[in-house]
């Protein structure tokens, strides 16, 4: 055993070191909880595997791994992980519920801010005119076909009231509904999934 270790060439020692490093990084990826750190780990993982491919006399495979594994794969991971914490709100009310005096200090914004801070979400509010033009009857279609999580509109039945519309299947919407007890003039409508083909 000792003779075997002493007779290793430099390239074999490097190969063993890289393989133990690979195992270490793999364990770190599996046990780590923070997805942002994992992206760095997966990029270094693909670099270490690329060097192991070179040691295995496979430069073609190494070039492919470096080109794909070090730029494009981390990019799509970064985007999908940052989307994972995002809550998109479409503001169709266009009054001081969310924005008052060109600042985000409305009642609705404080509510959404409380909600997003509580669940560590990143809130993203849009009042895009293209989407705002869609009539309120098609709100369900809008929710299903775009990434919008919540639509804020005026309540046609109550003066000064507001409606929040969302998908019934979403866990976050159910949590938001429990926070609405303090607000008298805000109601929530949850749309159930339609059957396919309807």
């Amino acid at each position, binding site marked *: 055993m000792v003779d075997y270790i002493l007779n290793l060439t430099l390239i074999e020692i490097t*190969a*063993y070191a890289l393989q133990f490093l690979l195992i270490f990084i793999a364990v770190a990826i599996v046990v780590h909880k923070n997805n942002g750190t994992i992206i760095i780990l997966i990029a270094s993982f693909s670099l270490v595997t690329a060097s192991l491919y070179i040691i295995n006399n496979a430069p073609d*495979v190494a070039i492919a791994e470096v080109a794909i594994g070090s730029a494009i*794969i981390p990019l799509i*991971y970064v985007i999908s992980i940052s*989307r994972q914490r995002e809550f998109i709100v479409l503001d169709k009310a266009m009054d001081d519920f969310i924005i008052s005096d060109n600042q985000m200090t409305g009642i609705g914004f404080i509510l959404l801010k409380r909600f997003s801070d509580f669940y560590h979400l990143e809130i993203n509010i849009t009042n895009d005119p293209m989407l705002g033009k869609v009539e309120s009857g098609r709100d369900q279609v809008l929710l299903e076909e775009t990434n919008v999580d919540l639509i804020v509109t005026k309540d046609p039945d109550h003066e000064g009231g507001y409606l929040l519309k969302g998908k019934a299947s*979403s866990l976050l919407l159910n949590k938001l509904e429990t926070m609405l007890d303090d607000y008298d003039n805000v109601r929530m409508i949850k749309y159930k999934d339609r059957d396919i083909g309807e």
Partner: protein
Amino acid sequence: MNPILTFIVILIGFYGLSTSDNIIKSVFCVTIIESGVILLFLNLGNFEGGAIPILNDHLVDIVDPLPQALMITTIVIGSTVTALSLMLCIKIFHHYGTVEWAEVLRREDVKS
């Protein structure tokens, strides 16, 4: 190169795949398994003292080029499969409001 050490990497990937509660974590583990399988295949064709499979004017012993050609296809396809599953993850988050396996399965049960 020791294939047993490479197989440990694959086993770590399997362990992560079966214990992860986050959907994106599962995709990470699939990537790990893929890299391990590629290393195993390359190790099969490699031998001591072999040269890279590019011909020179003087004849030398080269390693087997067939596993390498197969593994290039694996890398390119693996990246697109990763992209497809991550795109599905984004859709799942906007539909269920969560990317935890347990929550998604529970909400699926409530609906039916």
